[in-house]
C-alpha cells in the first residue's frame, strides 16, 4: 500500500525545500538588505574612548607655571545601560539621594541622549574614587573616566587665566565645526578662552571591543582606527607671578584694579581686578556651588575691572591733554596761564583749582607738576576751538581722533575676551544732548581735566603711560609673548602684538616737557612722598569724581624716568586722593619689578596698604548677611577632600594605585 503514496514523498521534499527557501529569504533580508544590523553590532561591541590630550600650560615670564594639570576622574553614565545598577549604594558613595540620582539621569538623557555617556559626577575626590573603583562591577552603565584638571599652584591671576568648564548646548552650537562633544571641557573666560584652540590640543580616540557585560575584550581591529591625542601647546606669557601676587595683595579689601605693562614689548606684567578669587575654587567638585556664590556676589569677583571697569581718568588725563595741544601747535612747553584758584573764562562753568599761588602754572612742566585745572581747561578749549577746523564740533572730532590714537575710547585688542572700549563720546552724543551747533568748548570743558562723559579702563590708562614712556609708540598690551612650537598661523595671530604702533609724530621736546612735568610730580608734586628706592620715576595722580560715593583714587606712572621698563595704572574705587590709595600700590609694584626686592619700611607699608579697607558699606553689608545666612555651606568652600594639603600628591597616589590594580587584574 505504500506504493500508492509514493507521490507523497515528493510532497514532503517540496515542504522541506519551501521551508529552506523561506529561511534563505530571511537570510537575504537580514544579511544583504539590512544595513542597520552592522551598525547595531558595532554599537554593541565597539567602545569609543576619547583620550583627552593634556591641555597646554601657561607660564609666567620666568617660566613658572601659573597653572598645571593633574589627573582626576569623572563618573560617567550611559543612562540606557544602567539596568541592574545598585542605585542605593551608588547614591550612598557619592552622597546624593535617589531623587537627585533620577534628576541627573534625566538631565543626562536630555543633554546627550540615553545611549551616549555623559558626566554623572565630575572630579571625584580620592576617597570617592577608591570606593567607586572597588565596586564598579555593581554599577553597569557607569564608568570612571580620566581627565586632567587644572590646578593653580600660585592661587593667583584667576581672572586672567580664566576657567574651563563643561561645554553646554549653546557652546556646541556656536563652535559646531570644532568637533566638541557633550562632556568636553573648554575655556570659558580669560586666556583659556582666547587661546582655547592652542591650549586644547587634539583629542584621540581609542576603540575597544567589549562584551555583553561591557568588559573590554581588546582593541578593535588592532587599533587601526585609533587616533593619538596631541597635547595642547604651552603659552609663555609676560606675567610675573610675584608682581601679580604682590599687586593682588595690595588691592585686598579694596575694589579696584591695577595694570602693569612693559612698555618695551607691550607685555602685561601684572593685571589685577579686585576683589578677585582663588582660581582653584572653580576646578573641583564644589565648582558649581562656588560659581553660583560668586555670581551672586555684589562685588563681582569674576568681573575683570582692568579691561571692563570704566573710570573717569581725572587728572591722569592731563599729560595727554598737553600732548594734544603741543602736537596741534597750540602751545609750546613754555606756555603758561595765570591761575588764581580756578578757571572762569566760561560763564556756564567754573573749574576750581587746588592751587592759587601765582606762577604754579607758569609753564607746562609746572602746570603738570601742580596739576593745575585752569591750565588744562585752557589748553583743552584751545584744541576744541582750533581755528583750523572751523567750529567746536569739528575741533572735537579732531580731538577725539587723538584720543583714539592714544588708545582711549577703543579696544586695545588685548588677548582677553570681552574687553571694553570705555567711552570717548561721539559728536552725535553732544549734538543730541545740547542740540546741533548749540554747544561749544565751554559746554564740554571738564573733558579737559578727564571728567565729563569721558571714561577709560585701567588698561587704557596703563597703555597711555607706555606711549608717553616710549615717546610716541606702543605695542598693544598682551599676555602671551610666545607659543610653544609656534606655527605660522599662530605667529600671524601674535603679529599684531609684536608690531610697533606709532601714535603721532609729536616732537621729542614736547614729550620731554610732559615727562619732566610728570617727574616733578614725584619730586615735589602730588606724588612727592611715594618713592622708589634708587629710582627716578614719572607719575600723575588723579582723583575722579564719583557721583555714587567717595572719589576714585587713580595713579598712573612709569619708571625709571630714563629708559622706562614698566608702566603702571592703578584705580582704587572710593579711595579718595590718587596719592593716598592708588599711589603706594603703583609704587610698590614698580619697586618690586625694578629692584626685585622691597625695602624694609616698604614691607611694613605693604601690610598697612593691604589692610586698608575701602569696600563700600553696601557690599560689606551683603557679605555679613551672606556669611551669616550661609555660614554652613554657601561660602566658597574648598573642594571637598580634594585640595586640602597636597592635591597633586594624592592624585599621584591614585594613579599609582590604579596602575597596580591594572597590573594585578591581568592574568
Amino acid at each position: 500500500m505504500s506504493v500508492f503514496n509514493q507521490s507523497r514523498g515528493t510532497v514532503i521534499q517540496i515542504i522541506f525545500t519551501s521551508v529552506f527557501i523561506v529561511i534563505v529569504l530571511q537570510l537575504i533580508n537580514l544579511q544583504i538588505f539590512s544595513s542597520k544590523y552592522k551598525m547595531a553590532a558595532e554599537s554593541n561591541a565597539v567602545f569609543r574612548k576619547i583620550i583627552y590630550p593634556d591641555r597646554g600650560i601657561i607660564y609666567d615670564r620666568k617660566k613658572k607655571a601659573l597653572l598645571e594639570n593633574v589627573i582626576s576622574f569623572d563618573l560617567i553614565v550611559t543612562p540606557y545601560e544602567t539596568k541592574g545598577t545598585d542605585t542605593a549604594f551608588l547614591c550612598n558613595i557619592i552622597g546624593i539621594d535617589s531623587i537627585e540620582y533620577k534628576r541627573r539621569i534625566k538631565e543626562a538623557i536630555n543633554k546627550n541622549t540615553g545611549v551616549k555617556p555623559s558626566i554623572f559626577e565630575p572630579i571625584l575626590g580620592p576617597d570617592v574614587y577608591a570606593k567607586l573603583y572597588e565596586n564598579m562591577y555593581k554599577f553597569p552603565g557607569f564608568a570612571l573616566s580620566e581627565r586632567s584638571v587644572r590646578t593653580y599652584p600660585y592661587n593667583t591671576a584667576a581672572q586672567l587665566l580664566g576657567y574651563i568648564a563643561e561645554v553646554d548646548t549653546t557652546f556646541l552650537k556656536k563652535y559646531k565645526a570644532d568637533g566638541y562633544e557633550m562632556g568636553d571641557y573648554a575655556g570659558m573666560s580669560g586666556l583659556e578662552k582666547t587661546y582655547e584652540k592652542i591650549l586644547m590640543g587634539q583629542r584621540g580616540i581609542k576603540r575597544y571591543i567589549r562584551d555583553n557585560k561591557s568588559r573590554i575584550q581588546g582593541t578593535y581591529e588592532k587599533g587601526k582606527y585609533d587616533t593619538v591625542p596631541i597635547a595642547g601647546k604651552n603659552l609663555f606669557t609676560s606675567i610675573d607671578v610675584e608682581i601679580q601676587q604682590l599687586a593682588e595683595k595690595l588691592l585686598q579689601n579694596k575694589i579696584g584694579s591695577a595694570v602693569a605693562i612693559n612698555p618695551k614689548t607691550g607685555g602685561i606684567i601684572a593685571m589685577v581686578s579686585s576683589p578677585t578669587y582663588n582660581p582653584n575654587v572653580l576646578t573641583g567638585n564644589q565648582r558649581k556651588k562656588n560659581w553660583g556664590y560668586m555670581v551672586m556676589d555684589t562685588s563681582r569677583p569674576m568681573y575683570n575691572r582692568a579691561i571692563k571697569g570704566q573710570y573717569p581718568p581725572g587728572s591722569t588725563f592731563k599729560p595727554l591733554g598737553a600732548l594734544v595741544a603741543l602736537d596741534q601747535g597750540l602751545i609750546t612747553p613754555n606756555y603758561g596761564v595765570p591761575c588764581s584758584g580756578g578757571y572762569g573764562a566760561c560763564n556756564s562753568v567754573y573749574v576750581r583749582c587746588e592751587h592759587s599761588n601765582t606762577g604754579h602754572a607758569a609753564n607746562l612742566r609746572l602746570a603738570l607738576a601742580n596739576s593745575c585745572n585752569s591750565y588744562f581747561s585752557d589748553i583743552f578749549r584751545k584744541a576744541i576751538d582750533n581755528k583750523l577746523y572751523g567750529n567746536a564740533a569739528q575741533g572735537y572730532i579732531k580731538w577725539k581722533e587723538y584720543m583714539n590714537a592714544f588708545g582711549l575710547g577703543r579696544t586695545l585688542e588685548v588677548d582677553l575676551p570681552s574687553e571694553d572700549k570705555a567711552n570717548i563720546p561721539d559728536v552725535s552724543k553732544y549734538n543730541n544732548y545740547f542740540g546741533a551747533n548749540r554747544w561749544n568748548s565751554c559746554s564740554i570743558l571738564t573733558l579737559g581735566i578727564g571728567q565729563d562723559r569721558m571714561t577709560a579702563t585701567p588698561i587704557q590708562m596703563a597703555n597711555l603711560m607706555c606711549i608717553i614712556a616710549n615717546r610716541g609708540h606702543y605695542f598693544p598690551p598682551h599676555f602671551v609673548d610666545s607659543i610653544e612650537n609656534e606655527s605660522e598661523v599662530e605667529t600671524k595671530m601674535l603679529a599684531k602684538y609684536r608690531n610697533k604702533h606709532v601714535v603721532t609724530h609729536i616732537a621729542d621736546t614736547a614729550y620731554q616737557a610732559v615727562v619732566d612735568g610728570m617727574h616733578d610730580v614725584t619730586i615735589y608734586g602730588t606724588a612727592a612722598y611715594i618713592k622708589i628706592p634708587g629710582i627716578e620715576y614719572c607719575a600723575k595722580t588723579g582723583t575722579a569724581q564719583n557721583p555714587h560715593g567717595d572719589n576714585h583714587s587713580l595713579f598712573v606712572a612709569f619708571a625709571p624716568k630714563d629708559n622706562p621698563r614698566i608702566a603702571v595704572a592703578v584705580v582704587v574705587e572710593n579711595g579718595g586722593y590718587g596719592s593716598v590709595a592708588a599711589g603706594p600700590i603703583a609704587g610698590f609694584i614698580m619697586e618690586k619689578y625694578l629692584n626685585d626686592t622691597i625695602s624694609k619700611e616698604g614691607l611694613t607699608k605693604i601690610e598697612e596698604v593691604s589692610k586698608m579697607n575701602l569696600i563700600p558699606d553696601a557690599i560689606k553689608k551683603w557679605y555679613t548677611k551672606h556669611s551669616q545666612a550661609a555660614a554652613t555651606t554657601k561660602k566658597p568652600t574648598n573642594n571637598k577632600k580634594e585640595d586640602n594639603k597636597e592635591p597633586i600628591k594624592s592624585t599621584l597616589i591614585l594613579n599609582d594605585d590604579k596602575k597596580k590594580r591594572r597590573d594585578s587584574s591581568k592574568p
Partner: protein
Amino acid sequence: MNRQNNISQGVDFGVIWLYAILVTIGILCIFMIEYRLDTNWFQTFLSAKTNYSKQLIFAALCMVIATTILLTDSKLFTAFANLSYIFGILLMLSTFIFGKSISGSKSWIPIAGGFNLQPVEICKVFTALALAKFLSQQETDITKLRSQIIGGFISLLPAFISVIQHEAGMALVYFSFFLVMYREGFPPTLMIIAFSFVVLIISTLLIEPNTLAIILSALAIIFMLSIRKVLKRTSAPLFLIVGIWFLCVGIQRFAVPFIFNNVLECYQSARVYSAFGKDYDCSQNVRSAKKTEKSPKKPDDYNVRQSKIAIGSGGFWGRGFLKGTQTRGKYVPAQHTDFIFASLGEAFGFVGSIIFLIIYLTLLMRIITIAERQRSTFSRVYAYCVASIFFFHIAFNICMTLGLFPSPGVTLPLISYGGSSLVSFTILLFILLRLDADRQMVLR
C-alpha cells in the same frame, strides 16, 4: 556471512561524509565562540574544560556508538522497537524522581563525570523505532481512525511528558511524526485543517481582533456566494460554513486570548508575541498575576534581537572566522547551544550560511532518497522519521535564530553543543544507515 566481517558493505558513505562535515563545523563553531585572544587555546583544549574539547570527546564517543550500531544486526532494531519505546518512556518519567534542573526544566538525569543526559532527546530514537514498528505491521491501516489514534498516541506521549517538564520546544519536535504518517497514508484533510488552524492562530496574533472578524466574515460570505448554486439545492453546506465561521471567530476572539492569558505563562506568551513582532502585555496574564514577585514588563526578545544583529552584521561575506564581535562579546545568549547559527551567520555571512543550508538540505534529500529505496516498510518509515526529526529541528532552530518563529529551545542537529543531542542524532542516523545497508532484507 561475509557481510558481518565487512561492516562498510552497503553503507551509504554520502551520509557519513555529510555527518562528518556537520560535526566538524559544529566543533569549529563552538571553538569560535569559546576562543579568547589572550588565552592559549591549545592548553585549554588539552585540559578538556572548554565546551569544544568536551564536544570533541562526545564526537569520539559517537564514533564508538556508530561503529557499534553498524556492527549490530538490523533485526535487533525491529525486535526491540517496542521494548526500547517503553524504556524511553520510563527514562523520561524517571526524571520526575532523579531529575536535575538545568535552566528551568527538570528534564535531565545526572550521570557520571558531571555529564547529564536528557531523555527527551534520546527518546526520539525510540519513538521513531516504535512508530516504524507499528506502521509496518500488516494489520495497521493508517487511513483508519483506530490506527491514527494509536499512531498519534505513540508520537505524542513523549511530547506530553516533556510539556510537563517545561520543555515545550522538544514537544514540538514530536509533531514531526505526523509528517511520516502523512507519507504512509494519513489523510491530508486533517493536515490541512491543522495547518489552517495554525494560520488562524498566527493571524489572531498579527491582526487586530475586529479586523480579523470582518475578514473571516467576508471570507465566509464570498465562499457562500461562490457556491450559491449548490446552496439552492441543499442547505447543508450553509450550516457547515456558518459552523466553521463560528468556530474560527470563537477561537480568534476567546480561545486564543484565553490560552495566552490563562494557560501559558507570561514569558511564554511574550516569546510567542515577540516572534511576530508584537508586545505582550503581561498585566493581562492571570498566571503571572498570581505570582507577583517577578513579572517582566517588556517582551523578552533580547535573544532574538541580538541573534538577528549577529547574523545581519555578517553581511554577504561574513566577518571572518574568530572575528565576529557579537560572538566574541557573548551578546547572543545560549550561542553555543540553541543560537549557534547566529555565530555561524556572523562569521561566514550569507555565502557561508547558504553553503551550510545546502549541506543540510542535501542530507535531508539523501535520507528521503534512502527512504524511498527501502523494500521494507519498517525501514522506510524509520527513514522518514529521521528526515522529519532532522527537518523539524533545523527548521525550528534556524527560524528561531532568524526571528521567524518564537524561540522554543531546540538544538541544531549535529552542530549545537550538547552530548545528549549529538549522541541521539548519531544513533538516529546510524541506525538508518544500518537498516539501509540491509535494504534487500524485508524487516517486520
